[in-house]
């Protein structure tokens, strides 16, 4: 890996640096803003899991996946202790702090994110 030419700066660049730093902190604020966009999540029952009347929901994309699990529990009327396993694309369980935005960008099919749910561990 070659050294970047950026490593040694001429002296005239030093005042530019503090401006750059301020801009960087401002830029960070832009990136921290929570996305109010919603994406479509499609729930699909697996095995003996109860089927819901409504399967497509618009969910705010900045939500963590944990919020989706809790939403699903509420829709199914499940108490906290009843087992419920969730998967993306019948393939894997995401970390509960993965955001819906990230999961949608990475795994969406036909513009929706498929979340499978079952009462037993399937693809754990």
């Amino acid at each position: 890996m070659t050294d970047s030419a950026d490593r040694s700066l001429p002296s005239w660049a030093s005042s530019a640096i503090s401006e750059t730093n301020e801009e960087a902190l401002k830029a960070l604020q832009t990136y921290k803003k929570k996305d109010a966009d919603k994406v479509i999540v499609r729930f699909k029952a697996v095995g003996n899991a109860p089927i819901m009347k409504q399967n497509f929901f618009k969910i705010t994309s900045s939500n963590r996946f944990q919020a989706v699990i809790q939403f699903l529990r509420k829709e199914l009327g499940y108490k906290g202790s009843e087992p419920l396993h969730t998967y993306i694309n019948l393939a894997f369980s995401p970390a509960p702090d993965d955001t819906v935005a990230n999961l949608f960008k990475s795994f969406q099919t036909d513009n929706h994110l498929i979340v499978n749910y079952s009462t037993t561990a399937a693809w754990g």
Partner: protein
Amino acid sequence: MSTYGTTRHHHSPAANFSNRDRATDYHTTLFRRLTWDGTVPLEIRVDPKELPANSDRNLECYFVQAPRVSYLPLLMPEIRRFFMDLVFDETAAKDLKDEEWWFETAEGTLVKWHWPIGLIYDNHTISASLKPTSSRSSTNAIPLRLILHLASPPNEKLLLSPSPEACKQAFMGQLKEADFIRWGSTKRMTGLRQQDQDGLWEGIKEHNFDDYWRVASKVTPTTAPTRAQSPVPPSSSASMVNRPPSADPGGPSERDGAYNVRSIPVRLYVPDGPVIQGLVPPMIDDNTPRTLSHYLLDHIPLLFPASPPVPPPSRANPHPRPPPVPRPAYALVQGIVMPLETEMAWLGGCLAGADGWVNVCIGINH
């Protein structure tokens, strides 16, 4: 440096490329070994308000040089032993349950159980880079100071329990998610025998490079030593490549190689900010690998603006380079500041964590 595993052979262009027999070249193995051996210093101290009566306050800190690829729940046995055997009074501590123990950073940020220790450390480094007093020029690693709480874990925010089983499930989940990102299915992971899948976690628990990579090499793509030397793969079996091997002899051609994945499993950490994940194809076009520079320009252009153009060559300056510009931010992978020319596919093959993910942490320059 010790020998690189007992089953590695030097890359042989004439070899038959089956997944099982594929040799991992020296270069890839070297970086995987360096990643595996990377450690970070942790300084763990119990919240003084929670110290059981009669604790030995002279020994209140536990120092450990922890592997970047490991997890806090795996360190819990030794942490527990230190505090229970040397610090806490036996009677006062007898009702403590270590499943209720949890960590915060010294700054009060909740520490996530399921993050690899190296990521926890780097994420803390970039958070510290926001504070004006921090200095990145220090070459000595500063210990990450963690506060250990002994009760009332904030379960709503922790999301996962620290049990070894939950930790293993989370780890396997990340490996499968990475597999899906690369190939659009988890066939490679689920195709492993149960014994092999368990072997991955055992390799982490025992911190054994050979045991871990004996299995991981079956599912992790490698980068060929120089792509021009890679032979064209046999076309008889169904190809997983989304695009045909390039007719250009310099192009990547190893069928299951790092440059042929659908997307590299990578996450971007903005200091005190969101985690960003999306599809990251390894090539911009048939001949141009995607670099860190491309990736960062795509996702956080305000922090990694495009370089100004190179001035045309002249008599006085026959080999011009782009003019130096102050860079607002830097990118850390495995604790190392990455040159922006680094290829994303290379990162995926050589500098990913044990869970398959490349974690890019963005720090702010001063």
